[in-house]
């Protein structure tokens, strides 16, 4: 992995929803590999590359907070849009929030900081002018300048992530002393297998002094 990258991300709030508790959302204790991949993709991604998260370093103590919001219950159906397209009346698809109100609580993380260590692989969509060096350069340049395709977020879009590139030779930020020791975080979402109908894959997350080693996708992990 001579072409790995290290990215420091942090934010005031984060929500990495557990799939088993997603109606009234409860966050995982830390960022998941799939959320970390999403952050990297928000900075640079092309179909020619695939990001692979190697390790996640948790810098701050894990703390939760709860918030309840008014949300809507239903998704827009494609059929109703098709009907409105045919009749040319956008007003027909409008949804009235009063009729469709749900109050949902969210248990989210407060004051988080992580170091994502990752590398990427070329996919079969890579053309002749897609070299590893080119994409690595683009990513590093963007991350260094704070450029991004869209503002990366910590789980959901209302919790934006600040990010800074950690240069190759620079030392990693030190985790909070409270992170010392080993902790079993249980089964955690690794990522979704989009090649096979978005099947979720899980891994047993162990955190040693804040560091979580992410096993290779499709390796030893079990399927949900």
């Amino acid at each position, binding site marked *: 992995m001579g072409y790995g990258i290290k990215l420091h991300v942090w934010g005031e709030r984060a929500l990495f929803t557990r799939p088993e508790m997603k109606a009234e959302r409860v966050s995982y204790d830390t960022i998941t590999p799939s959320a970390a991949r999403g952050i990297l993709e928000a900075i640079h991604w092309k179909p020619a590359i695939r990001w692979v998260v190697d390790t996640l370093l948790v810098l701050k103590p894990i703390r939760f907070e709860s918030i309840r919001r008014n949300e809507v219950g239903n998704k827009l159906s494609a059929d109703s849009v098709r009907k409105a397209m045919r009749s040319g009346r956008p007003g027909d698809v409008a949804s009235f929030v009063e009729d469709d109100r749900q109050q949902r609580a969210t248990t989210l993380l407060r004051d988080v900081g992580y170091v994502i260590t990752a590398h990427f692989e070329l996919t079969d969509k890579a053309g002749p002018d897609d070299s590893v060096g080119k994409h690595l350069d683009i990513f590093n340049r963007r991350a260094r300048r704070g450029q991004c*395709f*869209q503002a990366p977020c910590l789980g959901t879009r*209302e919790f934006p992530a600040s990010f800074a590139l950690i240069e190759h030779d620079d030392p990693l930020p030190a985790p909070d002393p409270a992170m010392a020791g080993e902790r079993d975080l249980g089964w955690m979402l690794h990522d979704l297998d989009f090649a096979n109908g978005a099947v979720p894959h899980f891994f047993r997350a162990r955190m040693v002094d804040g560091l979580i080693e992410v096993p290779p996708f499709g390796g030893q992990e079990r399927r949900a």
Partner: protein
Amino acid sequence: MTALAHRYEFVYLFDVTNGNPNGDPDAGNLPRLDPETNRGLVTDVALKRKIRNYVALEKESEPGYAIYMQEKSVLNNQHKQAYEAVGIQHEPKKLPKDEDKAREITAWMCANFFDVRTFGAVMTTDVNAGQVRGPVQIAFATSIDPVLPLEVSITRMAVTHEKDIEKERTMGRKHILPYGLYRAHGFVSAKLAERTGFSDDDLQLLWRALTNLFEHDRSAARGEMAARKLIVFKHESAMGNAPAHLLFDKVVVERTEAGTATPARGYGDYRVRVDREGIPAGVSVEEVL
């Protein structure tokens, strides 16, 4: 509609006097508080709701500016009639692949609904293209200083049910903040704007909406709310020229008299400073308000 060529970030300051800017359903409609710092919170969705409402008012029945997520109080039936009069014909073509159909539906939604093109929407389709990520994202707004909610008891001189007519008059409660200055951060991605067709005109409309956000949102609960400052950072390039958090740090809001023990009770108790010297190259600052 030409898509945006620049990335933007904005810092938005608004205040409330003797009102409740955003009630917490978990706490009996008390103003939302950050339990760790006692600072007030206003959720992203609360602000987006008001932006939608403003646009619905300003662009009443104008094609292309319909609001998908409506509040009934804003709705009027002229909408539908206007659309019927304009009669936008958009016959869906028979396309072989599902994905193309989904894309067509998405494109139609973006073209017709301001909130879909700005904030995005999720549509139920088997294909992923039925999801729109909007270019505009707003984070939770936090008050500059800790706020203290007050509970004000009020009485009503009438009763709801006839059988209660002989009883005492009903007492109610209002929760207010004597004063709170809130700060919200927002992001506009040029690249996502490209995909939803969010144009420069739409951006100007967004700035107008933020400037006038509370002028048409008066109610008994809100008290006096006002937009105080809207500072926009415009990046030279579509991807951006500087990290967002560095730009946000350039806007400093502080008490006019540092170290005063008395709580702030008005906007005059605060000073907003933009460190223009330290703005990275390729970023321009504009004070819209």
